[in-house]
């Protein structure tokens, strides 16, 4: 009974706007009939594919930078430097405390010119904004395994440090790594605030300009970005879920 009521409520709140927007997005020219007119209009807009590529590129880069920076940091904190953990944990919450608008103003005031002149500065800020989520994902993965024992075992069986990292540490926190990657990627691909305040152009900021010309086209654009994002996320989630259970069962085999 409760389930039924709640499902109906959820559908009202989340599905109806999407359905309404989809219906509008398929309306034909001058609002007559239904066709792909608006989507065709969207694809032919200047800069459509370029801006999608820019956003994808920035998102991939910030996912990678996030891993390069945070995986060693999180592993070290669990392995050796436990006394630094509360400080790092606090720093990683800061991006939730500091509004992105304020960070953007700060960036304008403080960043040297050569950084402000490159759009890759966005990658660094995307990593900062994603920090609370990626750190938590990695921390949770590391807390759920006994990494010290695993490393000790691997080392005492004669594995070198690089082998230990590649064949023990990374596989055992694969779940955490994928979700960290996934979170920072998702955040970067839709980020609007700091991008627009630092005057860069990505797909979300391009969308604002494109939306001003044609309301049905703008609605098609909304449906496109929403459905695209949901599909991407669900695919990654299902994929990483399967992988995670595989590594888990492998670990269990090892343990048995």
């Amino acid at each position, binding site marked *: 009974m409760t389930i039924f009521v709640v499902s109906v409520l959820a559908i009202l709140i989340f599905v109806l*706007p999407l359905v*309404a927007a989809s219906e509008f997005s398929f309306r034909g020219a001058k609002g007559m009939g239904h066709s792909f007119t608006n989507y065709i209009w969207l694809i032919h807009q200047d800069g459509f594919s370029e801006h999608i590529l820019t956003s994808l590129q920035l998102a991939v880069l910030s996912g990678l930078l996030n891993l390069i920076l945070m995986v060693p940091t999180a592993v070290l904190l669990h392995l050796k430097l436990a006394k630094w953990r509360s400080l790092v944990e606090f720093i990683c919450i800061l991006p939730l*405390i500091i509004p992105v608008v*304020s960070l953007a103003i700060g960036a304008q*005031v403080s960043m040297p010119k050569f950084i402000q002149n490159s759009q890759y500065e966005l990658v660094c800020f995307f990593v*900062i904004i994603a920090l609370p989520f990626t750190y938590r994902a990695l921390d949770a993965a590391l807390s759920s395994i006994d990494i010290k024992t695993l490393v000790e075992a691997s080392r005492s069986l004669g594995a070198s440090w690089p082998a230990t990292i590649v064949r023990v540490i990374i596989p055992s926190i694969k779940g955490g790594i994928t979700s960290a990657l996934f979170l920072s990627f998702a955040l970067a691909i839709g980020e609007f605030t700091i991008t627009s305040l630092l005057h860069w152009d990505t797909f979300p900021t391009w969308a*604002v300009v494109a939306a001003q010309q044609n309301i049905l086209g703008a609605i098609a654009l909304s449906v496109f970005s*929403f459905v695209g994002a949901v599909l991407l996320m669900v695919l990654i989630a299902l994929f990483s879920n399967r992988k995670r259970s595989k590594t888990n069962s492998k670990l269990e085999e090892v343990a048995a």
Partner: protein
Amino acid sequence: MEKEAVATRSEGTARHSFSISKITFPLLPFFTFVGFFLLWPILAVTIRSLKGNKNEWTLENYRPLIHGSYFHAFLVSIKLASITALIGALLGGLFAYVIVNSAGPKLTSVLDSISAVFANSGGVPLAFMFIAAFGTEGLFTKFLKVLGWDIYAGKFTLFSFTGVAIVYSFFQIPLMILVFKPALKGLRKEWSEASTNLGASPITYWRRVVIPILTPSFLGAFFLLFAGGFSAYATARAMTVGTVPLVPIIIGTLVDGNVISNQANLGDALAVGMIIVAAIAMSGYLFAQRRANRWRSA
């Protein structure tokens, strides 16, 4: 709590430390990066907000914040954040409860990723979806009209305070689902069984066990939602063209260039003002989080 216990224990057992490397401070990359891209910008904007036109120290930039239109904008922003955080917390909490108790693992992971997308949604896509549903020509508006309820009969528009509040709830509810679900998962089956065995009715179980245990997590989530709603920029920017005065929008306009010369540092003061409000909310979150963790250590 638990984490700390584990940490100290494992530190004790691993006295023979690994020779990880001879680097004196392996956390240096992290601290350098965070220092340069997070702490330094914040410090810089704080310092500049305290400087006058002749580079002298002053609190003058903060004067407009405590009365008049900027003060009003802070009030409106805080009101919007509180209302949408409350709606999000109540409905999102309910949805999370149902998901935890009746969805299988596969459905849960799909719902999780959908929630993640919706919680991060905003800006133009979200605004236009609501225009399609609840705008003057919207599908849902027309449907309600057929049923005899003209939502546009009164003063309602989608671009008013109420309209923006409805749209904000669209990302607050899924955010609540994401942050509140772990707390709900922490409710042990044994507790309900124990209280039933001791003769408690379901109502007593809720009143004496569930609500006291969940209250800190619920409050924490509320503060988190408040901070998120308070600093949301993209959606407000797409929906309010000056119709609802919100602090992030005002800062955005100042940044975009139309700055009157004697207000050069006003944007900085507003930005620091926002940090202060958000920091107060987040200290509520951290405090509540600490209380909530007490139960997990058992």
